[in-house]
C-alpha cells in the first residue's frame, strides 16, 4: 500500500486550517463560524494522524481527545446559538456582544 507523503498530508492540513482561520476571521454567521472552527480542529487532527507513523500512537490518541472536545464544544456552542437565535431571530455574531465592556 502506498503511503501518502507527509508533505501532502501536512499541506492539506495547513490549507484546511488556513481556510478555517480565514473563515473565522471574516464570516459573521455563527453557524459558519462554527463550521470553520471544526475545520481548523480537523486540520489539526489530520496533522496528528499524518505524523503518527513516525512518532507513535500518541498522535492518534490525541485525535480522539480532540474529537471528544469538539463534540462537547459543538453541543454547548449550538445550544448557545439556538438560545440566542430565540431572542434575536438571527445568528449574526454582530448581535452577540452582550458582555462587551
Amino acid at each position, binding site marked *: 500500500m502506498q503511503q501518502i507523503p507527509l508533505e501532502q498530508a501536512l499541506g492539506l492540513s495547513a490549507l484546511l486550517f488556513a481556510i478555517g482561520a480565514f473563515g*473565522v476571521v471574516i464570516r459573521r454567521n455563527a453557524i459558519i463560524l462554527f463550521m470553520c472552527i471544526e475545520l481548523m480542529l480537523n486540520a489539526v487532527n489530520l496533522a496528528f494522524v499524518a505524523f503518527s507513523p513516525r512518532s507513535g500512537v500518541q498522535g492518534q490518541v490525541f485525535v480522539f481527545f480532540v474529537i471528544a472536545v469538539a463534540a462537547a464544544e459543538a453541543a454547548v456552542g449550538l445550544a448557545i446559538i439556538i438560545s440566542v437565535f430565540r431572542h434575536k431571530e438571527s445568528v449574526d455574531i454582530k448581535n452577540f456582544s452582550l458582555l462587551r465592556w
Partner: protein
Amino acid sequence: MLLLQEAAVHATSAAAGQAGESFAAFAPWLILALPLLGFVLNGLLSITAARRALPALPPVGDPHWDAHHEPSEQEHHAHGDDAHPAAHADDHGAHGHDAHGHGPKPATHTLPSFIAPGVLIAAFAVAVVNFLRMLAAHPETAWVHEYWSWMPVNDPTGALRVGAAIQLDQLSMLMTLVITGVGSLIHVFSVGYMKEDPGYPRYMAYLNLFVFFMLTLVLGASYPLMFVGWEGVGLCSYLLIGFWFKERANADAGKKAFIVNRIGDFGFLIAMFLLFANLGTLNFAEVMERAPAQMAFGGAVVTAVCLFFFLGAAGKSAQIPLYVWLPDAMAGPTPVSALIHAATMVTAGVYLVARSATLFTMAPVASLVVALVGTATAIFAASIGLKQWDIKKILAYSTVSQLGFMFAAVGMGAYVAGVFHLMTHAFFKACLFLGSGAVIHAMHEALHHTHSDMDAQDVRNMGGLRRYLPVTFWTMGIATLAIAGVPPFAGFFSKDEITGAAWDGAHGQLPLAAGLAKVGIDGTLWFGLIWGALSIAAFMTAFYMGRMMIYTFFGQNRTGEEERKHLHEGSWTLTLPLVVLALASTFGGFLNVEREVPIVRWFDFGQGEALHRWLHPVLAGADQVAEANGIAGAAVEPSAVPIAVAILLGLGGLALAWTMLSRRALRTAAEEPAYANGVERVLYHKYYVDELYDRVVVRTVGWLSRLQAGFDRYVVDGLVDFGGKMSEWLGVALGRFQTGQVNTYAFAILIGVTLVLYAFVHT
C-alpha cells in the same frame, strides 16, 4: 488666721529647741480623699436628681420648654420665692419644679448642703492637725510619701519614676490651709447662694472636685502630679464657668478658659520634658537637688525651663499675654469666681514659681522676665479696672492685677513676699468676691420682684447699699482697705513687701540684681522701673476699688422705689464667711511683719517675719544656689521711703476716688452717657485685646483649619480619588479594544499565535 500667726510664732521657738524632731504626717491622703468623696457623693446625687427630673418631660411646644435667656448671671440663679422657675436655664429646664423652693426639697438638693462643706471642713481639720504637728517638729526636709508607683518606665537610658506621692512641706502646708480654709468658707457661702438652683448638686460636685484637684496640685510631690492637679482644676474651671451652659456666652467663656489654659499647659509640658532630659527626674526633691549640679547657672537650659514653666504659670494665673480668659470666666457663679478665679486656682502659677525657686534663682534672665511680665500685667489690668462698670469685671481685672504683683515678687526672687501676697489676696479677694455675690444676690432679688430688666451687676445701678446690706458693706470695706494697701490691713504688709523688694533691687540689694549682674545685665534700672510701675498700679488699685465701693454702697440708692423695699441682707451662710474673711483680711498681715522697717515695727506682736522663717526650709535650696554663686543679697538697708510712698498712694487713691465721685450725683447705667473720651473708651474696651486676639489668632487658626480641611478634601483625598478614577479611565480605554466581535478576537488570536510561533522557531 490668727491661729496661723500665733502658731507661726510658736514654730520659731519650737524650731530653736527641737529642730531635729521628726515630723509624722497625720493621714494627709485624707485631705485629698475627703473632697474626692464629696465629689463622688454629690455627683451621684446630681445624676439621680437629673434622671428623676426627666420622665416629667412636658410635651414639645410647651411655651416653657425653651428657657428664655438673659445675658447676665443673676437671671440664672434661683430664689426661694421664685414664681417663675421655668425662667431658669438649667439642666432641668422647665420641669424641675420639685427642685425649687415650693414645698420640701428632695434629698438630692438638701444633702449636698451638708456633704460639700462638710468634707471641706473635715479636710481643713486634717490639714490643721498636720499643721500643728509640722509646727511642733519644724522639719527641715519635706515629708514625702509614695502611695503607689504611677508611671514607672525602666528605660536603660534614663528611667522615669513618677509616683503617686504626697509632699508635705511648709509651702504645700500653707497652700493646703488656704485652700481648705478659704474653700470651706466659700462652700458655706455657696450653700446660701446656690441652694435654690436646680443644678445645685452638680454645682457642689464640681466644687468638691475642684478642691480635690487643687489639693493634688499643691500636695503632689512631682511636676507630673502637679500637672494632674493643674489640668484638673482647669477642667473644673471649665465646667463651673460654663455651669449655666444653656447661655452660649457662658459655655464660650468656659471653652476659652480651657483652651487658653492649654496653651499654658503646653509650656508646662515642655518645661517638664526639658527637666527630664537634663536631670533624669521630675520629682521636686530630686530636681532641686540635682539642678544646681547638673545645669549651668544662668544657662540656656535652666532659662528655657523657667520660661516654659512661666508660660504655664501665665496661662493658669492670667498673666500677659494669656490673661484674657479670666475676665470672661466671671460668667460662672460668683462663689466660683471667689474660690477658683481669685483665691486658689489662679494663684497656682505663683505656687509653681515658688516651688521651683531653686530653678528660678539659677535663671536670672527668666526671673527678670517673670518680674517684668508680672509688673506689666499689674499696671495693665489695673488701668482696665479703672473704667469697668460690672462689679465682677472690676474684681476680675483687680485679680489679674494683683496676680501681676505676685509674679513681680516671685520674679524678683522675693518668694516669701509673693506667697504672702497670695495668702492675703486669698483672704481679701475672696471676701470681695463673696461680698459682690451678696450684693448681686440682693440686687437680683429686688429687681426680680419688680421684673425690672436693669443689670444687677452694674455698679451704676446700685448706690447707697450700705444701709441695706450693712454686714456686706463693712466686710467689703475692710477688704477694700486691705487691697488698697492701707495699714494695718493685710494687703498693706504683703504689697509693701513686694514694692520694698523692688526698691531694694533698685539699690542693687536683691540676689537677683547680683545674679543679673553676673550674666551682664544691669538690673537696677529694671527694678526701679518695676517699683515705679507697681506703685502706680497700687495707686490705681486704690482708686478703682474706692470707685467701686462708692458706686455700690454710697450716695443715693439708684435701684428705684419698689426695688428698694426688697433689698436686704442674706442668710447667715452668706454673711458668716464674709465676716471671717474680713477678720482674716484685717489681721492676716501681721503674719509677716518686717521687723527692720521702722514704721511697721509697731504692728508686730511676735518676733516678726514669721512667714519668712516658716518657709525657710522650702527656700533653703534657692538660698544655697544664691550663696554658691556669690549672689546672696547684701544686708538690706531698711528704708522708710517705699513704705511711706505705699501708704500715701493707697490712701491717696481712695481719697481721689472719694473727691472725684462722691460729690457728683451718680447716675444709673441707663442715664450714664457712653464713654466719649478716647482713652476711657480704650480702657473700657480693655485695649481691644480680645478683638486683636480674635483677628490675629482665632480667625487665622480658623482660616488655616478650613484651608487644610479643603486641602484634605480636594488635594489629598482628591489625589486618591484621582488614582481610582485613573484606573477606571484606563479600564474604559482598554475596554474599547473589546469590540465584542468574535471575528476580531479570532484575528487577534491568530496574530498572537503567529508571533509566538515565529518567536519559537527563531530561538
